[in-house]
């Protein structure tokens, strides 16, 4: 037992000690999948450290919502200089906390399908939510949200819970935006097609891959993963004529940072080509400021919705409670 104790202590010490070769340390809080070996984190860290003579330290703190709640818990005492990985459903709450400073940048060359005017948060990637399907199992998919709700009686879908998952919340807002006051009845009509509602994206997606449902709420960029990493072109995203809702992932600088200049440098680096070109095949989202021609071929070939839907963050924040209640009541009846 003693040996195990020692090895446990040793591995914690080894991992907190960390490599720190002089110069400043920039601490970036982000979500788990960003920092994993196969995520963007390691490449971005290497690229930034080449140019900054500093130590870039990513701290993973669960998913996007967990990152924000951690910052709120830590308050002014936080070690973080930058938070990377919130989406526009969380930015209103984040701004209200007063913990974030204006980014002070003038972003150029943004390739989002919407205008970006946020003074506090800068986007680094984005994607359209979409229902993803396998065209060997489902030859023909709905062409609009309206069709999804009203037609295809035998279709089965799996979605995420808006109370525990950001895609789930995105879907509820998407429904609200497309169906407005009729959202509740649209949810009731959709109810019979919903196989189940999962805690997070991972459970839903793996249930879809295992054949539990015809479609899963994910992103239009999901098929690019299967095409590039698995050489599988059977996964498709349904493009809706009445629009697909957006998710925009952003980063912000904390007011409490003592490395303001370095933080600014990182935010600028975030929108530079080097960072941006790492994003598609590691985070599987569209980079926020990369020319379309520089995208990997499989990304460039993805079908693109004509209508991009997104509430302003303060609207999303104001609508959230009621939209979730509407969803819950419709599916509980």
């Amino acid at each position, binding site marked *: 037992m003693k040996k195990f104790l020692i090895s446990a202590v040793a*591995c914690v010490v080894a991992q907190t000690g960390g490599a720190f070769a002089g110069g400043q340390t920039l601490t970036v809080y982000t979500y788990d999948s960003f920092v994993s070996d196969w995520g963007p984190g390691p490449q971005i860290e290497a690229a930034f450290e080449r140019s900054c003579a500093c130590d870039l330290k990513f701290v993973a703190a669960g998913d996007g919502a*967990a990152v924000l*709640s*951690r910052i709120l818990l830590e308050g002014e005492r936080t070690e973080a200089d930058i938070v990377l990985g919130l989406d526009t459903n969380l930015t209103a709450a984040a701004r209200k906390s007063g913990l974030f400073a204006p980014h002070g940048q003038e972003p150029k060359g943004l390739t989002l399908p919407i205008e970006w005017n946020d003074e506090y948060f800068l986007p680094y990637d984005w994607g359209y939510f979409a229902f993803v399907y396998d065209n060997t199992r489902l030859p023909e998919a709905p062409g609009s949200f309206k069709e999804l709700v009203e037609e295809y009686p035998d279709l089965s879908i799996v979605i995420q819970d808006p109370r525990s998952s950001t895609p789930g*919340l995105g879907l509820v807002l998407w429904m609200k935006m497309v169906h407005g006051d009729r959202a509740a009845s649209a949810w009731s009509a959709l109810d019979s097609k919903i196989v189940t509602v999962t805690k997070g994206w991972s*459970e839903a997606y*793996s249930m879809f891959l295992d*054949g539990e449902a015809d479609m899963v709420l994910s992103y239009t960029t999901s098929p690019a993963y299967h095409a590039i990493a698995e050489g599988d072109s059977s996964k498709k995203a349904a493009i809706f004529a009445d629009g697909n809702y957006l998710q925009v992932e952003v980063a912000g600088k904390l007011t409490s940072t003592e490395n303001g200049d370095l933080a600014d440098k990182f935010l600028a680096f975030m929108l530079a080509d080097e960072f941006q070109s790492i994003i598609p095949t590691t985070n599987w989202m569209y980079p926020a400021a990369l020319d379309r021609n520089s995208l990997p071929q499989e990304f460039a070939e993805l079908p693109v919705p004509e209508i991009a839907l997104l509430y302003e963050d303060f609207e999303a924040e104001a609508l959230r409670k009621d939209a979730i209640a509407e*969803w819950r009541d419709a599916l*509980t009846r």
Partner: protein
Amino acid sequence: MARRANPLIALAGAAAIIAVALVTLVPVATLWINSDRLLGRSAEFEVSAADIAALRFTLLQAFLSAAISVVLAVPVARAIFRRKFFGRELLISVLGAPFLLPVIVAVIGLLAVWGRSGWISAVLISAGYERISIYGLSGVLLAHVFFNLPLATRIILQAWSRIPAEHFRLAEQIGMSPSDQFRHLEWPMLRSVAPGAFLLIALICASSFAVVLALGGGPRATTLELAIFEAIRFDFDLGRAASLALVQFAIGVAFAVVVLAGNREIGFGGGIQLNFENWSKNRTWAIAIDAFAIGSLIAFVGLPLLAIFLEGVGKLPTLPPETWPALINSISIAMLSTAVSVFLGLALSVRIASLSRFPGRAVEIFSMLALSASPLVIGTGLFLLLQPFVSPFNLALPVTALVNSAMSMPLIVRILLPACRRTVEVYGPLVDSLGIRGWSAIRLVYWPSLRSPAGFSAGIAAALSMGDLGVVALFAPPEFATLPLVVYRLMGAYRTDQAEGAALLLVMASFALFFAFDRGGRLGHHA
């Protein structure tokens, strides 16, 4: 009967109670005190209709899950107890396996068998029937029985083997029919052990969250744990989270009081546990019933495990390099947590057994409270408590060991307490009259008869700790990953295949630990 406490045991027992308080009352209090820290500031606690619905569903599914698990466990445990068959010892060990599966892995395994595209549906479709759909209450119950039937079986099986064999021999000799034997020997035993097992499972199921969502089919199946999650993660409302956590504790205590109040301990006295062949079990129908019970159990528990194995085994060679340090981290944490939790759990159980009825029950119920604690509340509460003083990253190991130990305390106490009560009852007077004290009392008297349940509970504690994900998240230093975290990260990055491989590795490692402890405890014993 109250007996003077051994000082060493009293001290460790008190430490165990403090550990339980640190994961239950302390985090909730911390959340209350800090309720103005975050954005949400609901001064008064509103209970919405949705909360009531969640509460009702929580109670319903917890009650049914526990009742079904315990009722089914009786014939299964009886069959395993009285039959000798090839692989019996292995089966008893494998019974620990479902309990230690990480939720997401168990769901995948269950769906491979019971899902819309699962094996059973495939058979039905090829035979011309409709596919089955388990989503809804039935899916939730299926998963909870899958997790907990084996646990209930193990607990009841241990109780069965605590009936001195001499009693069965005597019953045979005086010509008791099997139903008389059941009424006079087995039923009183069940009455003393089944309520505890029921309570344990009901509390485990009441705080279930991800399984309920995945298989529950939608917001009709919602538990309080989800409301707590939402309050912390999206509403940033610590006060509401604390209130909900209190409601969850109140449910736990209410369950415990109702179940344990009517629970009567039963003394069978001692025996030298001679081997004894019970002849009436060899009637044809008895053999048929036992074979059916054991066969059904193997199919029910074994098929999803087989599915997990088949999905994962081909992907083991493709695991990413970060899997291996994560495996070592997980094992190290599990070993540390297990050492702490078994030490504290043993002391607490012996202490409870030596207390008189009322204080004994009160401490027992308090120790069960950890099962009703929300991992997210614990993590958030301890984080708020410690972060002003120390960097949480420096506390990853002690906090994880503490929390894991306290979280497994209810299980350990549940498994050890019946054996402790019996030991205290049988040997207590002897210990007192011989004046054996301190460490020698534990070593010479308690340990030999507690070894087998202690091994089982160490196995459970180790496996629980291996599968744990929730609490450490806030304390884990950068780059410090545990194996369950790697599984979730892989799964969250489309790498389902590798995730299934890593999940299998996690299952195998947890099972190896469980097996080592459990078998270690049972060597030379009759389960």
